[in-house]
């Protein structure tokens, strides 16, 4: 199925990705080819087959609700682009 430029721009917005105007035509073509390629799944006779989300048929483990990690805010924030007083900084959200 050929995707339209508008569809691609909408997907890019959902994915929070900025593309330049020059990138969009080649991206649209490549994505259309990928979608065409995966469209062959449509013909597979899946009938009542249950979807497989995961290779191992096991339930998620539960753990005790106990503190297991220590506070490492400073180490983690050392990787942040911008922090102040232990908080992550972003551009102003509310005017």
């Amino acid at each position, binding site marked *: 199925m050929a*995707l339209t430029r508008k569809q*691609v721009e909408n*997907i*890019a917005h*959902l*994915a*929070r*990705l*900025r*593309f330049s105007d020059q990138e969009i035509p080649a*991206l649209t073509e*490549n*994505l259309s*080819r*990928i*979608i065409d*390629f*995966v*469209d*062959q*799944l*449509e013909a*597979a006779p*899946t009938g009542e*087959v*249950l*979807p*497989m*989300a*995961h*290779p*191992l048929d*096991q339930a*998620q*483990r539960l*753990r005790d609700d106990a503190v297991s990690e220590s506070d*490492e805010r400073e*180490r*983690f924030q*050392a*990787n*942040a*682009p*911008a922090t102040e007083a232990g908080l*992550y900084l*972003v*551009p*102003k*959200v509310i005017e």
Partner: protein
Amino acid sequence: MTLMHELTLTELVAGLRSGDFSSVELTRHFLERIARYDQRLNSFITVTTDQALAQAEAADRARAAGEGGPLAGVPIAHKDIFCTSGVRTSCGSRMLDNFNSPFDATVVSRLGSAGAVMLGKTNMDEFAMGSSNETSYYGPVKNPWDPSRVPGGSSGGSAAAVAARLAPAATGTDTGGSIRQPAALTGITGIKPTYGRVSRYGMIAFASSLDQGGVLTQSAEDAALLLEAMSGFDPRDSTSVDKPVPDYRAGLSADLAGVKLGLPTEFLDEGLDPQVRAALEVAIGELQSLGAEVIEVSMPNLGLSVPTYYVVAPAECSSNLSRYDGVRFGYRCSDPVDLEDLYKRSRGEGFGEEVKRRIMTGTYVLSAGYYDAYYLKAQKVRQLISADFKRAFESVDMIVGPTTPTPAFELGAKTGDPITMYLNDIYTIGANLAGLPAMSIPAGFVGELPVGLQLVGAYFAEDRLLNVAHRYQQATDWHRRAPAAFMQ
């Protein structure tokens, strides 16, 4: 005299134990080889010289005091997808070019406590998305057998480093073939264990239901040694399996008489290079002469592996990579006008082309109105593929076949067309979809280029794969071949 880089990991462990050389001598030898040869290959993103020598000194001291784990003092390399505290972990991406992990991956800490010395972090396709190592932010890796060709991917740096003997062994990860395909294209041994066998904690996520850590080594014996040290239950990984790790080396030499190998007719399709097929047939003949029985099996849904994968993997990738938002860690664009601009430009500039393409594909197949047609449908076909394996294992012990359709291809040959690139993994993806253990071993050459033989086992049958591979390697010497240009 045999040089240290001509020895396998197993032989190096023995040499250290008997005092033939110290860990410092051994580590320095490999660091010198990296300094001398790696500009030709680009297999390392970061070389950790000082840390490696400090670890080697500690290993020598431990040995002198009668202590030290099973890998005490042997140098290895880690794929740059495994988090290492104090050493940049880039995942091959501009997004994480400045990322210093606050913690070690479980694989890194386990191998560290077994005594392994880390030489550095190896190059890889960006976020492990690629089959040629050409999507790395740090530039492509070259194949040591022919530097105009790719080493495969995504663990291409680990594969090239081991093939050129710049490291005795390395870790890797395999989501659709990323250990086995580069192992095949560089003439080394690679194993991806059963999903859940090796902890994914600290292994940067791509597609969580498919990703699995493993090793790239010179031999099955080395793979057994290393895999055993890094496997096992980890409460920090919610999909880690709580099951004891067997002694993988104990069963290596078991007789192959009566072992049933299934050869899927679907593997011998028109896409398989005739010379690769010829090499495969010789290798299968060798396995038969070792006592194995080869039976043709049919796995009719295997042909849908690649399209299934290219729905499931991008879907999981688009979700996993949403964490890179330019706020808490990783790349941030300059002068964002507002929060949305910060997200979009940080991600647009921080990710490379292939990663963005997969995020876009994943976002599309998960979006409202398309979920059932693509994602749910792919999960159902995944069930059919898994059932094909289950059915095959009722009559055979493991699957045998080619690892890749062709030997290593030229750099740039497939970068223009994503579908052609994706089809490199046509024989390897099935094992990831089903979560089965699989390995690739060197099985001959086409001209100067190595060819891999693939083995896929039942759940947790790593020991049987290693057994067949080891017996094959005792009868052949393909795995001892190394590229002459790097062996002076």
